[in-house]
């Protein structure tokens, strides 16, 4: 079943002025319930516009955004409640922290939803576990946390709203390998527990290949490719053509094939590459 759907959505910035810029051009996409979807493309491909259309911060010029089959921008609709159902985490979300304690900041969204104190408390304590913050952090000022912890607290603030769809714009930007692992791992465990739909926008093919069930590749305001990771990686040349960085291991498999070794090239993890090479070597290396 489709949770969230875009039907022929177009969006133009500063329409009618000489600075107008078409960010999205008749995009149709559907996000299935309970999946992690990786949205990939380089800067200016329209993905940041897309995420703001998903929760009604922007309104499409043409087309419609459907949540459970209903147009979110319909007359008489309540956008605020849409935003509780489609949670959006912006890039560098740590800049939105403002409360005196981490607890209060995470509780801000649930409080706005009008949840009871007990329910809010339960959600705050549950989400900090997902993102791997200790309970001691809850009473601290968010500004005393380290960079990676701030990021996780900010993400927890949206998770605590328990949105049916969670959208994250570059959640791991600027973090070191440990930080990336912590934040992406946290999102993954949240999704597996809550069975919600998660959409992650990223530049990193490597990260997305590891975590998502489905990939959507965007280019110049249009959807270029979509499908399972395997399907998308089955044509790595197309990805490099539009200037995307494919994982080094995929480039390696392509380089091997170019040298006449008959290996699969739809590979994006080290583990898979190893199995594939052992397969083509036919056990000769042990001799």
């Amino acid at each position, binding site marked *: 079943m489709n949770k969230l759907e875009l039907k022929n959505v177009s969006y133009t910035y500063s329409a009618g002025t000489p600075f107008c810029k078409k960010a999205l051009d008749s995009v149709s996409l559907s996000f299935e319930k309970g999946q992690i979807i990786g949205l990939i493309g*380089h*800067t200016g491909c329209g993905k940041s516009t897309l995420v703001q259309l998903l929760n009604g911060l922007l309104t499409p010029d043409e087309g419609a955004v459907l949540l459970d089959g209903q147009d979110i921008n319909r007359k008489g609709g309540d956008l605020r409640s849409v935003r509780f159902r489609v949670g959006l985490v912006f890039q560098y979300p740590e800049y939105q922290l403002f409360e005196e304690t981490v607890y209060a900041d995470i509780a801000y969204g649930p409080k706005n939803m009008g949840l009871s104190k007990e329910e809010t408390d339960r959600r705050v304590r549950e989400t900090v576990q997902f993102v791997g913050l200790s309970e001691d952090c809850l009473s601290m000022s968010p500004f*005393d946390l*380290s*960079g*990676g912890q701030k990021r996780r607290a900010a993400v927890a603030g949206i998770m605590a709203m328990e949105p049916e769809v969670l959208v994250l714009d570059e959640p791991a*930007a*600027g*973090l*070191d*390998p*440990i*930080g990336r692992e912590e934040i992406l791992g946290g999102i993954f465990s949240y999704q597996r527990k809550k069975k919600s739909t998660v959409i992650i926008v990223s*530049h990193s093919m*490597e990260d997305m290949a590891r975590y998502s069930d489905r990939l959507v590749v965007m280019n110049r305001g249009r959807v270029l490719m979509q499908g399972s990771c395997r399907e998308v990686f089955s044509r790595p040349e197309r990805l490099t053509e539009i*200037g*995307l*960085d494919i*994982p*080094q*291991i995929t*480039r*390696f498999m392509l*380089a*091997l094939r*170019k*040298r*006449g*070794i008959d290996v699969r090239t739809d590979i994006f993890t*080290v*583990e898979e*590459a*190893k199995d594939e*090479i*052992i397969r*083509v*070597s036919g056990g*000769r*290396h*042990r001799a």
Partner: protein
Amino acid sequence: MTDYLISVKDLSFTYPESEDAHREHPVLNHISLDIERGSFVCILGHNGSGKSTLAKLLNMILTPTSGQILIDGKDITDPQMTEEDIFEVRRSIGLVFQNPDNQLVATVVEEDVAFGPENLGIPPAEIRERVDNALRAVGMTEYAGHSPHQLSGGQKQRVAIAGLIAMLPKCIIFDESTAMLDPQGRKEVMNTIGMLNREKGITVLHITHNMDEAVAADRVIVINEGEIYLDGTPRQVFSEIDKLNAAGLDVPQVTALFAELRQCGFGLPADILSEEEGAELLASALT
């Protein structure tokens, strides 16, 4: 005798007493290090490993708790340093920061590049010449009249670099200057760094947590818990996969793959960095 631009001897740094307990242990702990003139050195470490503190010490933004720093043979920790001496150090050791937005001062690109030379009291005609040369070197000449907020992240960083080049530095330190950029911007900045080092002979210290960027360096130094953890050529350092993982760092995927294959009995070297050389080796081993 090797010509060292920077010599660090037994350097320690502890943040002056602050309320948060986690800052009390030393950020840098008895570090000794020599940087050869004209070399391209990459400093790796996870967040909080102390690598950025080192940059600020070399530039005299921070003062060491103990130890000595020699720049071009001159001891900059000497309390007899005059203000003129300090400015001479800052002129010869340029620093590019992480956030591209927070280091540009003027509302026009070329005015910003002129900011450093103006502070040094260089005659106007010469500033003009230096600014033009610096903008040409980073490929931003056509943006000379733009305002910084019209530029992409990568372009802003290139303007910041031009601002330093115009001061004719001996060394430029990049303090995680690629961390907030998208892949395109990262490529632009990395190409510029390589050019500075090769063509202008400027010594480069590149601080990062991104492994791929370290591959191009002459030398890689890994800092962990305030101490020098690994030091050598990229090949030497990246062959120590277990140690790197323990320090919270990744290795390039191809290096990881070769390590796995070695464990399976393949007779392959451990110091492979690029996919092309790896493919070449493996292809000849398999045929």
